[in-house]
């Protein structure tokens, strides 16, 4: 029996991942490929955060908290880490693109080939 209780957040995650994957697989512009990777990353981050939600819960912070059930802290920490990693990768990818544009004068992936000499 498939548990069908409210899978909408997960479907949103999959939607984001697929949009990103679509850009990576079908687009030729390097900037668009990078945007696709960033969207996949947002999808995965959303997945992690989604896993941490608990019904009727508050943020896991005790400072002046009203009390009650708390949502899970570990996915939030993981997402934080993964966001920073995403920024780092993005910065490096963009700097490679700058150099690629200087060499080839184009951003079309099908025209960017290494020489076989």
């Amino acid at each position: 029996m498939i548990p069908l209780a409210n899978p909408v957040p997960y479907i949103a995650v999959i939607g984001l991942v697929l949009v990103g994957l679509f850009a990576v697989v079908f687009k030729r512009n390097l900037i668009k490929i990078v945007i696709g990777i960033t969207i996949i990353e947002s999808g995965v981050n959303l997945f992690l955060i989604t896993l941490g939600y608990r019904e009727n819960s508050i943020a896991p912070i005790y400072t002046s908290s009203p009390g009650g059930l708390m949502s899970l802290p570990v996915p939030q920490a993981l997402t934080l880490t993964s966001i920073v990693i995403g920024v780092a990768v993005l910065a490096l990818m963009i700097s490679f693109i700058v150099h690629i544009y200087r060499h080839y004068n184009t951003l079309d992936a099908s025209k960017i080939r290494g020489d076989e000499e």
Partner: protein
Amino acid sequence: MNDILSILVNHSPALIVAVPLFGAFLTPLVGMINDKLRNVFVIFITLLTGFFAVILVNEVFTNGIKTYCFGAENPSVNPVVRIFFEVDGMSAFMALIAVILPIVAVIYSWGFAKEETGQSKYYTLILLMTAGILGMVLTGDMFNFFVFLEITSISSAALVAFWTNKKNSVQAAFKYIVISSIGALMVLFAIAIFYGQYNALNMAVIANSIGFGFLDKIALVVLIAALTMKAAIAPMHMWLPDAYSGAPSPVTVVIVGTTLASLYGVFRVVFTIYGKQFLTILRSFGDFAVTPSLIIGVFIVVLAVLTMIIGVFMALKSNNFKRMIGYAAVAEIGYMILAVGSAISTYFIPTGTTTVTMAEHGKMALTGGIFHMINDALDIGLLFLVAGAVYYATKETSLNKLGGLSRKMKYTTVFFLIGLFAVSGLPPMNGFASKLIIYQSTYQVNPVLAIVAILCSIMLLAVFVKVFHSAFLGPEISSIKNVKEVPRSMLIAMGILAALIIFFGLFPEFVITNIVEPAKNALLNSSEYISAILGGV
């Protein structure tokens, strides 16, 4: 004295990663003072890391699995909340590979990178790459594995683009970082699935509670796809020759380590995390039972054959020294996973449906495969260093523009011959020792595999004989008349690798019993890995 040593041994899993990280953070500051001081400092850091690796490996091989918890002396194990490092035989084996390569690369760089700008960042990134590989192979936590995977891929991509004035390097770096960041995101996706199901991130905990439902299968497929992508197994091998040939040679030597570390990730996932599920019978046809291990094994063997053949044929076609070695590296990866795939498909078969001898062959294949990992690192590393030396002396990598180097560069020629013999599996070198085991065992599994493997070896020999003929023999080419032998530091680095190759070739038994056997036993014994964390040892 003994006290200090035992403290160091106790903390070696943490220190082995902390030392290169600390060194990497300090390198830019030291680099502002003096170039020579910085080089000495970096070599010192790599040697210190090597020292910690040796005492850690010694400890693991004598006393079994070593765990280290970050942040607490008496951590709670039920549930596991903190990050654990878990070093078993296989991790220790990989740690050895991971510390040998940077030492060689850093010594080589002293001469090789003397003329370049941005050396401080270059050495920083090499140290970071070392730390990343070590973290990947030592950690016992899935998310930690992901973080270190990213460290290695970012630092190696940046170093691939070291020569930003070359088209090939920059586009190879972009290709490499796209592949590796997609791979890393897939790993993260699988981690999220595990976390959602088992509320755990520790590998041992996941391995203990794993089932084989739909989500587990998805996670397995995603993990294997991501890590084989990073390990350059066909059909995702295309980035490897580009990246290997685009990067400066000493960097390539360390990148070989990152590729092997990704391969280690595949082994860890398949053997340890899913090890308990190997014998679940999915469907049986009379006497013949289909198990996950059989499916995974056959799948890996098919990929392996594809990888070997593609690698060898592309190497035959290529006309660039470094690209050729890159394709040979692809083929060598094929050998490793050929052995491991046949091991998986034969060793783990439910009792009653197989004979004991078949399992023995599987075990032997695994020994060969693991032994070949370290041999591959040494052989391919040496060949790339030779190609780097040729490039340093002539500024050329195209075979058409090289010739008659043997008269001017005697030592380099000798090192190339050693590498040639080793990579094409001729005796007395290490490549022969491991490939012989692979041939023997895969022949028992399926003769066709062994025949393909032998044919590929012969063609690899042909490839490198061609290189030897056109680059080192023959008439001198006028454009490279005033070539000189490379600086001493580069010769020393090549000498270290060559000495290890000959040593491994002359005493394979010694190496197998002391290093390879513990690694193999660790892979085959996933319950020990689990109980080291959960079961109070």
